[in-house]
C-alpha cells in the first residue's frame, strides 16, 4: 500500500509517453484495492441472494425478479446524482466513501431483516444506491490521479483488480455455505466485515479533496448535464450509447451457449467466471495498447470481438464443445477488456476536472440504459423469430452501430488538447 504516496511523482513528472517501466499511480492502486475488497464483499452476497431469498425465505422468484429489476433501474439514476454531488466541491472521496459504506451496511440490513420482505427490499435498495453513488466518483478519481497518456493502463489495472474481487467473491461465499451447511447469515456477516475493510482502505489510502482553485476560468456552473455542452463528449456518449444498444447482454450469450452445448444447468454460474478470468488477464495489456494507439481504435475493435461472439454462436452445430465455449468466453473477455475501462479513459480527459464525475456518470448511465434497451429488444426478437434470426439481427445492429461509432468518435490523438483541458 506504500505506493499510495507516489501520486506526487506522477504529477510532477515531465510529460512523456507512458513507458513500460512507469509505475501505476498510487491512488489507482489504492482504489483498485478498495474495489477488489468491496467486490469480494458484494459478489459474495450477489451469488447467494437468489438462493437465500427463494430457498431460505420462500420468497417467490417473481417477487425477487421484480425487486431486482426495480433497483437496477433506480441505480442508474442514483449514479447521476452521485456524479453531480462529487463534482460539487470536489468531494469524490467523500461521495464514493458514502457509497461504499452504504453497501457494506446493507449486509447488516439483510441480517437484521430476517424474513421480512420490506426489510430485505430496503437492504437491497441501500446496496444498489451505494453502488450507483460510488461508481462515477471513483472513476473520476482514477482519471484525476493519472496522467492522460497512461490513463488506459490505470483503468486496466483498476478493472483487473476489481474483476479479481468479483471472481473471488462467489468462491468465498460458496465455500462459506459449504463450511457452515447453508448458514446464509455467516455469508452476510463476513461480507459486512470485508466491506468495512474496503471502506477503511478508502479512508486511509485514497487522497481526499483536490485543492482545485474553486474559481478556475473554466469552472462550470455545476449543472448535472453540463458535460453535454462539449461536442467531443457528446460524440463519445453518442458512440457509447449506439454501441451499447447493439450489446445484447451476457445473460443471453450464456443462455445461447448453454443451449448449443447442452451444458448441465448447474454449470451455468461458472460461465461468467470464465469470461471474467479472461477479462482480468487482458485488462492491463488492453489499457496499455489503448494508451499507445489511442483509445478510439481499441474501443471500436473491442466491439469486433463482440461481433465475433455473435458469429461464433451462429457457427454450425457439431464438433467438440470447447471449440465453441473457449472462443466465446475469450472473445467476451477481450470485449470487456478493450471497452470498459478504455471508454472511461477515452472520455475522462475530454471532461473538465470539476465536471468529470458527473460526465462519467452520464456516460455510464447512457451506456447502461442503451444496453437495457438492447437486452429487451433481443429478448423480443428471440421470442418472435427464434435465436438464430435474433443473432443475425444483433450482428446487423452491431455492424451499423460500429459504422456509426467509427464516424462519431473524435479522431484527434489523446495529446495536446486533452492535457490542456485537464489542467485548466
Amino acid at each position, binding site marked *: *500500500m506504500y505506493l*499510495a*504516496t507516489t501520486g*506526487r511523482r*506522477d*504529477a*510532477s513528472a515531465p510529460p512523456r509517453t507512458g513507458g513500460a517501466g512507469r509505475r501505476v499511480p498510487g*491512488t489507482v492502486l489504492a482504489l483498485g484495492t478498495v474495489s477488489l475488497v468491496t467486490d469480494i464483499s458484494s459478489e459474495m452476497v450477489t451469488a447467494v441472494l437468489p*438462493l437465500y431469498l*427463494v*430457498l431460505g*425465505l*420462500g420468497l*417467490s422468484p*417473481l417477487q425477487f*425478479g*421484480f425487486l*431486482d429489476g426495480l433497483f437496477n433501474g433506480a441505480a442508474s439514476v442514483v449514479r447521476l446524482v452521485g456524479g453531480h454531488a462529487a463534482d460539487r466541491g470536489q468531494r469524490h472521496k467523500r461521495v464514493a466513501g458514502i457509497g461504499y459504506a452504504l453497501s457494506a451496511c446493507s449486509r447488516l440490513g439483510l441480517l437484521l431483516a430476517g*424474513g421480512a420482505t420490506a426489510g430485505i427490499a430496503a437492504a437491497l435498495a441501500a446496496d444498489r444506491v451505494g453502488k450507483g453513488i460510488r461508481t462515477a466518483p471513483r472513476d473520476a478519481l482514477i482519471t*484525476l490521479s493519472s496522467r492522460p497518456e497512461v490513463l488506459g493502463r490505470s483503468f486496466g489495472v483498476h478493472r483487473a483488480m476489481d474483476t479479481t474481487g468479483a471472481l473471488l467473491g*462467489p468462491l468465498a461465499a*460458496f465455500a*462459506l*455455505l*459449504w*463450511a*457452515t*451447511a*447453508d*448458514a446464509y*447469515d*455467516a455469508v452476510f*456477516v*463476513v461480507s459486512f*466485515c*470485508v466491506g*468495512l*475493510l474496503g471502506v*477503511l482502505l478508502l*479512508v*486511509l*489510502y485514497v*487522497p*481526499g*479533496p*483536490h*485543492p482545485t482553485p474553486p474559481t478556475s476560468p473554466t469552472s462550470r456552473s455545476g449543472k448535472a448535464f453540463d458535460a453535454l455542452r462539449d461536442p467531443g463528449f457528446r460524440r463519445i456518449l453518442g458512440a457509447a450509447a449506439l454501441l451499447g444498444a447493439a450489446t445484447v447482454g451476457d*445473460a*443471453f450469450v*450464456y*443462455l445461447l451457449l*448453454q*443451449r448449443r452445448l447442452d451444458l*448441465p*444447468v*448447474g454449470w*451455468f*454460474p461458472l460461465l461468467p467466471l470464465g469470461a471474467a478470468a479472461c477479462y482480468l488477464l487482458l485488462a492491463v495489456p488492453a489499457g496499455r495498447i489503448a494508451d499507445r494507439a489511442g483509445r478510439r481504435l481499441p474501443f471500436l475493435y473491442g466491439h469486433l470481438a463482440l461481433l465475433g461472439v455473435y458469429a461464433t454462436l451462429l457457427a454450425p452445430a457439431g464438433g467438440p464443445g470447447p471449440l465453441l465455449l473457449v472462443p466465446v468466453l475469450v472473445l467476451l473477455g477481450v470485449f470487456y477488456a478493450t471497452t470498459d475501462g478504455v471508454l472511461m479513459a477515452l472520455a475522462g480527459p475530454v471532461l473538465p476536472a470539476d465536471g468529470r464525475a458527473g460526465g462519467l456518470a452520464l456516460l455510464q448511465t447512457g451506456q447502461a440504459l442503451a444496453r437495457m434497451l438492447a*437486452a429487451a429488444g433481443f*429478448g423480443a426478437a428471440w421470442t418472435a423469430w427464434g435465436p438464430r434470426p435474433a443473432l443475425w439481427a444483433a450482428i446487423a445492429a452491431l455492424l451499423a452501430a460500429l459504422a456509426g461509432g467509427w464516424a462519431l468518435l473524435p479522431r484527434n490523438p489523446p495529446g495536446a488538447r486533452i492535457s490542456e483541458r485537464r489542467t485548466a
Partner: protein
Amino acid sequence: MIVRFPSSAAPLGPRARIAVVVAAVLLLAGGSVGYVLHARHRSQGQLVDADASFTLTGPAVYFRDTASGRVAHQPRAGTTAARTTGGPACDRFYASGDSALCLRAKPGVLPKSYAIVLDRHLREVRRITVPGVPTRARVSASGRMLSWTVFATGDSYATTAFSTRTAVLDLRTGYLIKSIEDIPLTIDGARHHAPDVNYWGVTFARDDNRFYATVSTKGRTYLVEGNMRDWSAKALRQNAECPSLSPDNTRIAFKKKVSEDPAAPWRLYVLDLRTMRETLLAETRSVDDQAAWLDDGTVAYALPGAAGRASDIWTVPADGTGAPRVAVAGGSSPVAVG
C-alpha cells in the same frame, strides 16, 4: 492539480495507517471467523436423517417444521396438538402409500438438490442429485410414482427470471425421466412446438398413469393433463398453476394468477373436472404453494408465517365456504398420511 496527494490523503503517517489496517484486519477477520465457527457449530447440531422411531404412520399430518428444518407430524385435529419431531431434514416433503420424497438443497458452489426417496420407515432407498433449488414434491396415492420440480437457477432469458425442471420417477420400474419438457404437448388441439416450455407442480391420479401439471410457454401458463403410458400431454385450460388432485380424483386445487401485483399475484381455486367449473376458495391472501388435500373437503397450504416464523400451514374448506385457519404454526409442505 494533483499536487500534495500524500499530505491530503490522511492525517496519519504511513506507519500509523498500516497499524490501523492490520488492527482492522485482525479485528474483522477475528469477528468473521468467530461467527462462521458459531454458525458451523449451530448447523452441525441439525441431524439430517430421520430418527429410528420416526416413521410414516398415520393418521397424521406430516410437514416440514420450519424451526428445525426437519419433518415432523401431529394429529389431524386441533391446532395446539403436540407435534412429534425427528424426521429427515428436507426443504420440501411429501409422502403417500409406502413412499416419501424429501428434497434437500445441497450446499456448494453450484446450486444442487438431492431428491431422496424414502420408504415407510423413512429410510433412504434412492438418492438422485438434481441441479437446481427444490420447490415442489409429489408422490402418487400408491407410492409408486414420484415427481419433483426444482428451480434451475440462471437458466433463464434474463438473470432475474427463473426456469424449472420437473422429473418423474417410477419406483416400480426404476425408470427416471429427468425432465419431462420433451413430452409431446397439445394446446388448443394443435401440437405445440416451442423451446421455452417449463413444467412444474405434477400431481398424479390414482391409476398411476394420468397426471396433471403446469406448463408455461410464451408467457402463458396452462393446466395440462398428461398420460405416462402414451407419453403425451394436452392443455386443459389457461392460467392454472400447481395443480393438486383431490383424493377422490374429481377436483383439482390450483393457484390462479389474478393480479399483476408482484406482492400478491395468486388466489386458490378448486376446479371440478366433470363440469370444468372453478370455485374460488375462502382464502383471500396470495398463496404460492402446491396445495395438499387433507381429505376430500379440505386443502392445506403454506403462507408466510406470523411472529417471525418462516411459514405457517393453513387449511380452508375446498368448496369455497368457511374461513382459513392455522393448522400448524411454523410449518410447510403439509401432507396427510394414513
